[in-house]
């Protein structure tokens, strides 16, 4: 292998899309994925429908996987990690190792794309307020996805369809005490999407969303927010929930309805915590191995506004949620841009040699 190859780290949506595009350009790509399967978080966490378009996550991811696999110049390595990296743009030396096995292979690559993604915020860090590990019926967006995918949205403690469901926004985001001051961007939309799905699957359920600000622009507004309210009768209440108390066999959510300026104590069967995004362990590890600057929250730092895929190291590009919370549309755009930058660097180098 010579420096005519781009190394892509991460086999989620961003990595798959970048690999496919580099392959389509006729260049070589090696895609390494730590897990033993491709598809990233949407597959690993059993996502139901994707935004936008409400397509099945499994179906959409399988298309991406098939496109990458079908490409003869794309070399996919599963259960593989990058363990060392040296060199500079156009001429990197990276050591790959099978997960849990030190013995590895050293390769030369011309450019690198980091697509190591995010993980969901663990609401256990907030247990005293929302009791995620205390109450069976307090779940996260990811837990809800699993149930919605199986078309079996129930009150976990009872196994029966809920009558009242609510979403609490900004869990683990926009919070100085937790240390995550950033907005996770997608949770308003995902909650609203799930609210629609709950209303479709359990038509008898009343669904509420308690929020601080609803942040849904572009397709989120037209495809999700308006229909959620107008067609699916999801009830939006401005005022976040402070705490959840058990009341009989139900949950009581306490907070303030801020537009009314009145306290509220509302019974619920299921409470969904709209957990935000944090950098995945892979993102944090890879940043160290590649020597990339990270921002305050440990996402990969993107130093230049006019080059949204650049990292602090020339020749190393970033795509997707490794650089901060992002929806799938933005992730795919970024993957395309990163693929173009990486491929251009390799091509330029080849021309210089010739």
């Amino acid at each position, binding site marked *: 292998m010579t420096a005519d190859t781009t190394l892509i780290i991460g086999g989620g949506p961003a990595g798959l899309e970048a690999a496919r595009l580099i392959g389509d350009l006729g260049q070589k790509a090696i895609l390494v994925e730590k897990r033993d399967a491709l598809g990233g978080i949407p597959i690993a966490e059993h996502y139901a429908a994707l935004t936008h378009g409400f397509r099945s996550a499994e179906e959409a991811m399988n298309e991406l996987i098939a496109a990458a696999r079908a490409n003869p110049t794309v070399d996919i390595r599963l259960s593989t990690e990058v363990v060392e990296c040296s060199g500079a743009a156009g001429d990197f030396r990276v050591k790959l190792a099978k997960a849990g096995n030190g013995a590895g292979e050293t390769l030369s690559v011309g450019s690198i794309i980091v697509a190591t993604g995010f993980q969901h915020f663990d609401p256990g860090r907030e247990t005293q*307020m929302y009791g995620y590990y205390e109450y069976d019926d307090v779940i996260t967006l990811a837990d809800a996805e699993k149930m919605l995918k199986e078309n079996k949205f129930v009150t976990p403690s009872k196994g029966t369809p809920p009558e009242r469901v609510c979403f609490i926004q900004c869990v683990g985001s926009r919070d100085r*005490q937790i240390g995550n001051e950033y907005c996770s961007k997608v949770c308003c939309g995902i909650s609203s999407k799930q609210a629609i799905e709950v209303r479709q699957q359990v038509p008898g359920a009343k669904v509420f969303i308690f929020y*601080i600000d609803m942040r849904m622009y572009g397709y989120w507004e037209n495809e999700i927010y308006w229909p959620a309210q107008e067609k699916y009768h999801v009830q939006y209440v401005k*005022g976040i929930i402070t*705490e959840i*108390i058990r009341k009989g066999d139900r949950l009581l959510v306490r*907070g*303030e309805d*801020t537009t009314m*300026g009145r306290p509220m104590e509302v019974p619920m069967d299921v409470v969904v915590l709209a957990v935000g995004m944090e950098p995945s362990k892979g993102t944090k590890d890879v940043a160290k191995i590649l020597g990339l600057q990270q921002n305050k929250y440990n996402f990969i730092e993107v130093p230049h506004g006019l080059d949204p895929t650049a990292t602090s190291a020339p020749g190393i590009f970033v795509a997707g949620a490794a650089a901060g919370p992002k929806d799938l549309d933005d992730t795919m755009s970024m993957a395309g841009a990163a693929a173009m930058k990486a491929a251009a660097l390799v091509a330029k180098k080849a021309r210089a040699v010739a």
Partner: protein
Amino acid sequence: MAVGLDKVRPDKVTEEKHLVVEGMDISGHWNRMFEQRVIWDYDVDNLEKVTNLPGGESLGWCYGCAKCTAVCPIDIVGDYSPRKIHRKTQIGVDLFTSSDLWLCTTCMNCLRVCPKEVNMIQIMPAVREQAVLTGAVPPELQKAFEDTAKHGNPLGQPQRKRADWAKAAGVPVPIMKDLKRAVDILWYVGSYPAYHPRGMDAARAAARIFNALGIDFGILGIEEKDDGDSQRLAGEKGLFEMLAEQNIAAFGKYEFNRMVVTGPHEFNAFKNEYPKYGADFKVAHYTRFLVEHLDKLRPMLKKPINLKVTFHDPCYLGRHNGEYEAPRELLRAIPGIELVEMGRCRENGYCCGGGGGGMWLDSFTKEHTTMRLSERRVREAAEYGAEVLAVCCPFEVSRFEDAAKSTGNDKLIVRDILELLDESMKE
């Protein structure tokens, strides 16, 4: 709210004295009509007046999520919370002259849940300090400040009588000045245990427990002055600094290994504030101190107290200083006691209303709320079937006993944990 900024225009309230509509008599307030004031400007000067003060900055950070409102003890008996104060200030209410300024007890439950760290524990003292400088202070609070300045305690009792309570303790209570030697434990008694009749009961109980445990201790007696922490939080920083200086000088005269305090407010002052003024000593609240001696104490707790007991977490022991276990461990060590928890306990404990100057704003607070916080709390204790409300803050015994009477819960017994231990130690 300041004059002229009420939601309803006072000059636009109409009421027909005699009115019958379709045979229905709706005379008087039944037909009262209001006209709301239109918000015609957002005068941010008043918000900036607060945020420009050192300590006041974070009021401007509120993004209106309202997590604070659900846990604000004042909102439950009134219309109050940091979110609401931020909004009112944003529409031009002057916090410096608003009654809202004096209602916060600095209980810290809002800060516990605030994602933006809007810190009322800093905002309130900063704004109150300015109000104190201009003399715009409720008279009863002003009296407590003056009494503290003059007598060294907010109860207005003579300084020379500060150790008089000890005469009836039935055990020796050594005074450092007479002892003329180093002690293991310097016991800072505090103003309410020294002067308030119900506080004295706890102080005497403590003296008996310390003696029974063979603790080598001494008190400062007339050399001790109020810690001043609540006065500081109520806006009298100058007074606090004077008391800190005097107390630190008094502590410095004697040798001791550690200080033990009766009250959580004193604990907070000595642990978190006095070091800023040069104090350098170890301090423990009596609950933690006694837990350390529980092996020796436990065999002495012979007399069962066969009652259902609930514990009220003091804000300045729990939320402010993270101690939730020690008081409960002591209560569990007393034979016969059935410990029940109220809904609002531990991190979410409800405030008694005494902190941050609330102790000296009783009539003022009563005027602006539907009931005292202590009354709300006593009702909660009664709802949970408690026969005894156990406390470990000297502000609380008298507050809760008064509240038990005024709410018709006369049967509820209020006791400091010291008193319960002392009772159980009796033959």
